[in-house]
């Protein structure tokens, strides 16, 4: 079944409970009667599990021996619904993916909401469905949470913070210190789809397109990769804000090595590349939500690529570059037409050009 069909099935299976209020008001975050009514309304039953059902101030659970990873991220995306997903899905996938980049399978997630007064219950419900969907897809449990409501104008509909912990794969040894000259740089899917999907629905910039966000869990692919290749995976990174260019620049700076990129090898969907062209944006700087960069030992690179290409979202996975001890701290792009240029760190947000 396609991901979009699975989402529709979940929406049909989980109709919104009947409530005596249509919109979120300040009282729903007061901690008093209205908060309890929101909690008891059936709204949060969506996320049901044993640990959450205890409704304690925090979750208490056993841990097994080994290394754990811990990560947090806040989600303030506007608009909250976009082609291919919503802020709820993003908030779960994002933190699960950050843990995956540490080589860890996310187990438990906290979920903090900051709601703006006036948010409709319908919108909130749809966000919660997104959260439930992503939690099921990634296999993570939401075990503790918090809801605050701010006055109208003090927020932007809904902000979400998630923190997560998970067990690190026993064979994983992922760190910047392991990156060395000769390592190959692989990417798990086409770049720039998320950022362009969001731009296509921003007020003032709307354009018609079938481009959808690539928001997706990466943990299964990463765990499978670690099962097969273990410590030959030197580093993982998801190129979210600032895109591939930012992540690789940070890497080059931190490890004091250079990176050579082949523009020809970098996968970009044709529609995305067309939209970037029209909008005057460089796909290398546009945000992604469902792909990762892997820096792997040279001798394993071909096999890792083969594995990535065999995974459900990996058919356009590619080897895009090499780590080198030449030009330390610089990312060099070999352009399609045979020229060379430096790929720099972006300054602030990428702004569209005039003509």
């Amino acid at each position, binding site marked *: 079944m396609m991901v979009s069909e699975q989402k529709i099935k979940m929406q049909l299976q989980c109709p919104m409970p009947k409530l005596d209020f249509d919109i979120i008001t300040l009282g729903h975050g007061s901690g008093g009667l209205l908060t309890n009514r929101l909690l008891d309304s059936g709204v949060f039953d969506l996320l049901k599990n044993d640990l959450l059902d205890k409704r304690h101030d925090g979750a208490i659970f056993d841990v097994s021996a080994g290394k754990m990873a811990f990560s947090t991220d806040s989600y303030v995306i506007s608009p909250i619904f976009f082609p291919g997903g919503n802020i709820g899905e993003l908030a779960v996938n994002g933190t699960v993916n950050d843990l995956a980049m540490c080589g860890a399978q996310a187990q438990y997630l906290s979920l903090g909401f900051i709601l703006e007064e006036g948010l409709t219950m319908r919108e909130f419900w749809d966000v919660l469905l997104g959260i439930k969907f992503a939690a099921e897809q990634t296999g993570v449990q939401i075990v503790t949470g918090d809801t605050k409501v701010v006055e109208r104008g003090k927020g932007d509909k809904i902000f979400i913070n998630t923190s997560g912990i998970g067990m690190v794969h026993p064979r994983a040894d992922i760190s910047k210190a392991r990156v060395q000259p000769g390592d190959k740089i692989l990417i798990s899917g086409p770049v720039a789809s998320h950022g362009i999907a969001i731009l296509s629905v921003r007020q003032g910039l709307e354009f018609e397109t079938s481009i959808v966000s690539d928001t997706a869990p990466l943990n299964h692919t990463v765990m499978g990769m670690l099962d097969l290749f273990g410590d030959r995976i030197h580093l993982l990174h998801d190129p979210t804000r600032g895109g591939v260019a930012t992540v690789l620049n940070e890497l080059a700076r931190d490890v004091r090595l250079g990176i050579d990129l082949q523009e020809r090898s970098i996968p970009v969907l044709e529609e995305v590349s067309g939209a970037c062209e029209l909008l*005057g944006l460089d796909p290398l700087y546009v945000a992604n939500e469902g792909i990762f960069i892997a820096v792997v030992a040279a001798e394993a690179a071909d096999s890792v690529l083969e594995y990535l290409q065999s995974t459900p979202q990996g058919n356009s996975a590619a080897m895009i570059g090499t780590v080198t001890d030449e030009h330390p701290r610089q990312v060099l792009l070999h352009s399609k*037409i045979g*020229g060379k240029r430096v790929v720099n760190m972006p300054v602030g947000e990428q702004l569209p050009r*005039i*003509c």
Partner: protein
Amino acid sequence: MKYLSEYRDADLVAKYIDEIHRTVTRPWTIMEVCGGQTHSLVKNGLLQLLPEQVKMVHGPGCPVCVTPLHQIDKAVHLARAHDVVLCSYGDMLRVPGSEMSLLEAKAAGADVRILYSPLEAVKIAQENPGREVVFFAVGFETTAPANALSVIHAQRAGVKNYSILTSHVLVPPAIEAVMDDDEAHIQGFLAAGHVCAIMGIEEYYPIVEKYKIPIVVTGFEPVDLVQGILMVLRQLEKGTYQLENQYSRIVRPEGNPEARKIIGQVFEVSDREWRGIGNIPGSGYELRAEFSEYDANRKFDVRIPKVSESEECIAGQVLKGIKKPYECPQFGKKCKPQSPLGAPMVSSEGACAAYYHFLQVMEEVE
């Protein structure tokens, strides 16, 4: 993207580059007028592929770069003091005014919005009848039709709360200004393809004759650029001077008559100040008197003091091709994209930013 990929063909570029190497026998200096061409030359790494004898200088065709400081100050003032919804194209927002950029004004609470089309601004005005909406109408001949159309739309729909702050500039007078400058020694031009797509090519014949220089109307893709450069070089080597059209797949000799009609209906030619260059007679557009109610300058009577440019910025010399960005003592030091002293470091089409981003002639030391 089929239409573009043919013009990004590596083999074809290599062929033209070979031909350029075979053609050139002595040093030549060619200016590409348009910032979009500068961006493409640098982004695609074409400059390193040219023979050393061919010196490309980067012209004043970056609308963001040549918008005077005073105009930016006016826009900031309108957004802050008059509480208008100030709309503009994206890369205009980061250009430093004397006190702040529009982006900083936005952070300080002003209602500043990035749009792709001035028609969106008219829509915003219709949706917010209680607020004044101003579109900061910058650009060359390329953006003039859309800006003119927005005024016509507003007038037809009876929208009274919409106006434009014009800072339009024109290419041919800028070419003449460069040629008249004793310090600039340009021997041939690549004219801006998209400007000619609107305006046609007739205006360039008198310039070719007056200065006896070859001008080739050129596109923006790698193949376009190397072909355009080769066409100029062939003329230079032969000692001829003619107007040629490399970009004929887009540019018709008469331009786009419909767009020209709209421009003529709404705008009239006026003198215009260029940032870093100064006043160039007949080099801009102002709204015609019959559209004066859509002129933000008249509507708001903005009177703010004129502040002079940073003395450390040599933007004027860069825009006229007298100096390369890296010949500026502040390039990459005090002046960087995150803290620009002048506008060419802001827009990705500005020569300084293009060099900074893609070439990094100066090694950056953090």
